[in-house]
């Protein structure tokens, strides 16, 4: 049986009177690419924030299984601890360390696995030196693989928009995640860039043996690479299924058309 990497059980998130996410039950299995779609304000990002510890769900549990036979309830854990357990993410409105170099952005993502204490690091003890060298070698390999090595000394904010999106993904990869959450990775990309990104997501899934859970509005991308799709509307899960099922689902079509009518 294939391992379930992430599971949400009845996750609900309420902000005052607004129920942003209502009774969300998602299952993400190892090596899958799962998409979360839905109109603006449907609660997709909120669901991500519930999973990554930015918010604590008002109700329900988030269960994460980092390896065969081990399961952890990560509901309400600190984002940094969740990241350490192997869940990395990107943000809808890119959150790079803007004033730092491309290289530093990725190197920082290696800090979470550092074993040396700050004393060992300050005194440059041999153990720390070894770790630092390994981190740097890793970052170099990663940046070369994704063609960002040439711009490693540029400020992150000086990269073109599309490259910033890639850099954010690479930074997340540097934490060595099991599960990668991408919040609208193709936002602002043209069709050609989107199709390149589609290939890239597949590549990194295979290359780094990842499970991917993503929010996306570009339907070409979603339909092409998703194993399964969850559709949210006003916080409610209105449909689940594979791309063909979703494309033909009445409620989904209605939710998207309804949005068009309002606009």
């Amino acid at each position: 049986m294939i391992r379930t990497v992430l599971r949400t059980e009845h996750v609900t998130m309420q902000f005052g009177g607004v129920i942003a996410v209502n009774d969300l039950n998602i299952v993400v299995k190892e090596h899958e690419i799962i998409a979360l779609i839905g109109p603006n304000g449907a609660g997709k990002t909120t669901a991500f924030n519930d999973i990554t510890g930015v918010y604590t769900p008002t109700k329900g549990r988030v269960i994460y299984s980092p390896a065969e036979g081990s399961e952890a309830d990560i509901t309400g854990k600190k984002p940094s601890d969740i990241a350490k357990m192997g869940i990395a993410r990107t943000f809808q409105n890119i959150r790079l360390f803007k004033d730092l170099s491309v290289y530093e952005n990725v190197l920082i993502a290696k800090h979470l696995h550092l074993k040396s204490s700050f004393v060992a690091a300050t005194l440059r003890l041999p153990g720390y030196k070894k770790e630092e060298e390994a981190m740097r070698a890793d970052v170099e390999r990663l940046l070369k693989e994704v063609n960002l090595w040439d711009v490693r000394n540029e400020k992150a904010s000086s990269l073109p928009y599309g490259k910033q999106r890639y850099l954010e993904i690479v930074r997340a990869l540097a934490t060595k995640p099991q599960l990668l959450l991408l919040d609208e990775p193709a936002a602002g990309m043209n069709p050609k860039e989107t199709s390149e990104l589609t290939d890239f997501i597949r590549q990194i899934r295979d290359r780094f043996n990842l499970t991917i859970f993503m929010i996306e509005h570009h339907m070409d991308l979603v339909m092409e690479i998703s194993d399964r799709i969850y559709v949210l509307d006003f916080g409610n899960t209105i449909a689940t299924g594979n791309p063909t099922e979703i494309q033909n689902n009445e409620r989904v079509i209605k939710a998207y058309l309804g949005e068009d009518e309002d606009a």
Partner: protein
Amino acid sequence: MNKDKRNIMLTLVALVVLFGVACFAQTEIDSYVRRIINLCLIYAIIGLSMNITNGFAGQFSLGQAGFMAIGAYMVGIFTVPVNLRADVFYATPMHPWLVNIYIPLWLALILGGVLAAVVAGLIGTPVLRLRGDYLAIATLGFSEIIRIVITNATSITNGALGIKNIPPLNDVRYIFLVTAISYIIITLLLNSSYGRAFKAIREDEIAAEAMGIGLFYHKNLAFMVSAFFAGIGGGLYGALLGTVDPKNFLFTITYNFLLIIVLGGMGSITGSMFGAIIVTAGLEYLRLFDEPLEIMGVAIPLFRPGLRMVVFSILLMICVLFWRHGIMGTNELTWEKILNFVKHPLAGFRKKGVQGK
């Protein structure tokens, strides 16, 4: 890595040369100027310490005066010769447990730093959850609380009378060495993976957390290390003055360090060093504003004690309004830049394309 080795060698050589200068200054320069040099060095340590939290970790803390006071009082309480203590504590006798304990200066400095760090750790737990202005206000408040506790613990600190008879330390060599060691340790920390984590928090807390950087741990670490060095700087300050007094540690002194790091560049280690020199020397020269001035027999009414601080505040305002990145921004003066400048003094003025050849 070869370049790193070269840079370390160059830094060591520079430190040795500077230490030579310090030895020269100690014997050849009059005590007034030596005092200013020493104050520069001490302000450099404290400015640097403040830069750890404010410039690198991006946590706007204004608690430096309080941590300095802790260090200064550690020196004040324990380094006054035992036989002189009765003179100092003439109003309220010193607590019997303490009256015979003497600690050498170097140890008092370290203990002062450690105590300041411990206090910072205790304060940090509630305070570092706050952001921006709230953090600034809370740390400012705690700094005043420390001062008030010190003022009222009369049998330990001699209260508002302060502690006199601290063996005065107007020794450029000693203070230079402490500054150099502090500078090296802080630089090594800030250039390590932990320093990068601080910068990540400064740039974007949410992203830093998502990358597995524990906010609380790293903010507290920055805060405690900062307090440690502020305590050491404060201890030297007490030893330089030969006396400690609660009034020396009013929160207004923190603004001097704020000016140092803003002027030098928030997030620049070398910037803090330049800032310290400019501010200390500047404050000294601005003294002429405090003296009555007569031009052709007419007294200019503005020139009176206090004008110096007005001018100082205006400079701080101008700096913050028009020159927010200070001298260095978040950059450092590196050996690469210095060597390049030595090789091609004018390259910076030429067009960029030419430089490569």
